[in-house]
């Protein structure tokens, strides 16, 4: 435990006008750790994730990735983003590109890879997420679960140190949730550092070392999934869990 955490969030505040989306959040994530973040809608969990790769600019506070504090410097931010993969609720695949083209865009434009090398990697990654046969298919011809798996492969193509998942299964039909969670579980087993906003209890129990409960922009409780689900400490956590665990 002597190593410095790979993500270090200190006293983070984010305001949208009068809304205080993040209120003094501090959180460390160790390399290889999986942290699941839960909380009611509007609790700031997505904002926290988006601040980590600076899709939102924090109002105050600091975030350090791999020891380097991230400031508003374009080049540094782009460099950092190349190391931090992100998977969105709405997949956000590029509809005018095939699965392979979606995956190779990052390595080719940001890392300046040769096309052949990128395509080889893309095919490996598509095999890894279980859809090698969909290499030349456009997103609109894929199911939601398949699209999300391509999106994960697209992020992995940058060989990131950290992966952020922003409600990756919320827009999926129930029967497709498992195929995406399985890919995420595989990643966790391979030792990927992951920050996951998700209410999938099974995933949290199987993969997460820690679970964070957020409400109204604050971290209310942070413990192991087992303890949080069976013995929540705070009133707000209890209330929230009783609502999602029917």
């Amino acid at each position, binding site marked *: 435990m002597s190593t410095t955490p790979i993500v270090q969030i200190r006293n983070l505040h984010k305001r949208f006008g009068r809304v205080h989306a993040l209120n003094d959040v501090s959180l460390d994530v160790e390399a290889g750790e999986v942290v699941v973040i839960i909380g009611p809608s509007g609790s700031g969990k997505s904002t926290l994730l988006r601040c980590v*790769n600076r*899709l939102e600019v924090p109002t105050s506070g600091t975030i350090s990735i791999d020891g380097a504090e991230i400031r508003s410097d*374009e080049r540094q931010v*782009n*460099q950092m*983003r*190349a190391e*931090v*993969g*992100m998977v*969105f609720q*709405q997949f*956000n*695949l*590029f*509809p*005018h590109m095939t699965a392979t083209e979606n995956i190779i*865009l*990052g390595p080719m*434009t*940001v890392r300046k890879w040769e096309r052949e090398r990128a395509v080889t990697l893309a095919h490996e990654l598509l095999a890894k997420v279980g859809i090698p046969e969909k290499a*030349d298919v456009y997103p*609109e011809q894929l199911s939601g679960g398949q699209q999300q798996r391509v*999106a994960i492969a*697209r*992020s992995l193509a*940058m060989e990131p140190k950290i992966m952020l998942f922003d409600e990756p299964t919320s827009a999926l039909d129930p029967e497709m949730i498992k195929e995406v969670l399985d890919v995420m579980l595989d990643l966790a087993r391979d030792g990927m550092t992951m920050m996951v906003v998700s209410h999938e209890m099974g995933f949290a129990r199987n993969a997460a070392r820690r679970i964070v409960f957020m409400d109204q922009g604050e971290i209310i409780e942070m413990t192991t999934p087992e303890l949080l689900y069976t013995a929540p400490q705070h009133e707000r956590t209890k209330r929230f869990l009783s609502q999602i665990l029917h």
Partner: protein
Amino acid sequence: MKAESHTKHAVHHYGWQHDDSTLIPRERSLMIAWWIAIVAAVVFIAGVVLFKPVPYQEIIGFIGDGLVVTFQITIVSMTFALILGLIAGLGRTATNSFFNILTSLYVEVIRGIPLLAQLFWIYYAMSRFVRLGPQVSAVLGLSICYGAYIGETFRGGIQSIPKGQMEAARALGLTRGQAMRYVIIPQAVRVILPPVGNEFIAMLKDSSLVSVLAISDMLRRGREYASRTFAYFETYTLVALVYLLVTLIFSRVVFYIEHGMSRQDKDQPVTLMHRLAGVVVDLVVLDFIGLIVYGLLQPLALLFTGLPVNAVLAVVMLVVGLIYLLLFWTRAGRTPGMMAVGLQLSTEQGEHPSFPQALERLLFLILPLPGLSLLWMQWSPTGEALHDRFAGTRVGRD
């Protein structure tokens, strides 16, 4: 075969609308209206020219070179309008507030002034400071005016792309410029192309306004003929019908572009109309490119005054056409015109075309080229020159 493709199309697009009892008028009735209009126009024009050659044949000959001028003014102005529009569109979606305000101001001001007033202002009012020729004034007025409208089209297209696309691209580490280039603009083009096509048609019609600047476009030529022969009815009827004919053809092309862009499955039967529409798009694009090449070569061409200009132009257009074809054929497997109408001539996606397919494509592109270069040869530096040339020849009953 044709009916089959239609049914398939309708089902594909609307899913649940299998019968006639829908609230939305069916595509086929729009199609029928188009056919009625174009057949009527062609039959009428051909009929009067054949059976009543005096004065119709003469009128056609007279307004014919006005049509060439109309095309030239439109193509030149459209080129500049597209450039201005791109700047305005990017400016209004930019984060830089200075650039944003500047381009927004341009759009707001220009859109608030009628085109005719702008043309008068540029030609007459501005002459207090600089004297611009009628051609320059016309092109300037049309470009600036349409640049503002096209800028709004571009802005709408760029903003219609969901925010998540930019975020996903930036999250991969792409810069804003790279994200625009690889992710946003390729998608926006699909949204933008049909309305830009409509702007092109609108400009073709609005270019008749430049006749007030003593430019011998089609309307002006008609007026010149009519005022000499007093054949007002015959002349203006033909002028109107020729405008209608040209507009109908282009509107059909835009229709195919719209369809090609939204068409999801690419293995639909390719009709002759699709191909023709693709060829027209290619010709217009080639015209844009030819214009730039011609402009660049003009100073050089003056050095070789011994060569016939027509031959030089024909060669230039042919070479440009071939380069264009080879470039897109080898790199994308199809030309921009084919992309625009969603044509996939190669049988399998990503596969290069077979030899007969390539030959077919070549013919479709090359055949109209000599005609195109002829259009270019007609270009004369001033409307007056053209006017004089014809004034000396036979002019009706005067």
